[in-house]
């Protein structure tokens, strides 16, 4: 995870369009300016970044299912539960399951586990719209390759 750049997903471990599921590996960095403020003497991953990790993981699923023809933007978070502290150096497994691919929107159930224990879950809604420009689409494709989104799912 590169928290300062909002790059929450290190690697897509599994992405199954037929099952509409995705699983990602995310390693919380040992050091980050984020931990200097959150909190002094007690560094923990901010809950909003746990939600962001679930949103991004589900977002990669939506992107892959649409072959990167449209971009999901976070629109709503429901029933977010932050069940345990997450500390620097902790390895996270983030999962998402697509609940519904609507017209212009999508909904996913996200969860985070660490060491076999669930540490967070939430229901995420995305607005799914045409890419606002080619710069963003190219950047998303580049990041997708870096985090190992299957090549066959990159382009339609």
């Amino acid at each position, binding site marked *: 995870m590169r928290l300062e750049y909002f790059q929450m997903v290190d690697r897509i471990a599994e992405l199954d369009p037929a099952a509409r599921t995705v699983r990602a590996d995310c390693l919380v960095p040992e050091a980050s300016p984020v931990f200097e403020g959150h909190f002094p003497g007690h560094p923990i991953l901010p809950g909003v970044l746990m939600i962001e990790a679930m949103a991004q993981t589900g977002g990669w699923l939506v992107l892959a299912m649409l072959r990167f023809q449209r971009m999901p933007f976070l629109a*709503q978070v429901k029933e977010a539960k932050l069940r345990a502290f997450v500390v620097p150096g902790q390895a996270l497994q983030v999962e998402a399951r697509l609940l519904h691919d*609507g*017209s212009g929107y999508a909904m996913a159930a996200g969860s985070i586990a660490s060491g076999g224990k669930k540490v967070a879950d939430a229901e995420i*809604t995305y607005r799914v719209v045409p890419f606002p420009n080619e710069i963003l689409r190219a950047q998303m494709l580049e990041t997708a390759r870096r985090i190992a989104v299957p090549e066959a799912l990159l382009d339609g």
Partner: protein
Amino acid sequence: MPSTFETVAGIISETCDIPLEKIKPESHAINDLSIDSLDFLDVAFAIDKAFGIKMPLEQWTQEVNEGTVSSDQYFVLKDLCANIDQLVTAKAA
């Protein structure tokens, strides 16, 4: 079995916290009931699920934005319900 309107009104009432008695077939979802676009996503999700359809919201929104149709055609509830019935029939065919 509830009518399409009864199902849709129930969804709107529950999702948007609007008293059921305020929701009429002539109500415009946006202009009369003040449902914003984000709340309408929740309504759309519940309608899609309840009727097993996928309402073409993107196409409807585009048509309204381009001025080719009035928003009444998609967002007045009796018309919305007629569109839902058409989608259900088309899916069953």
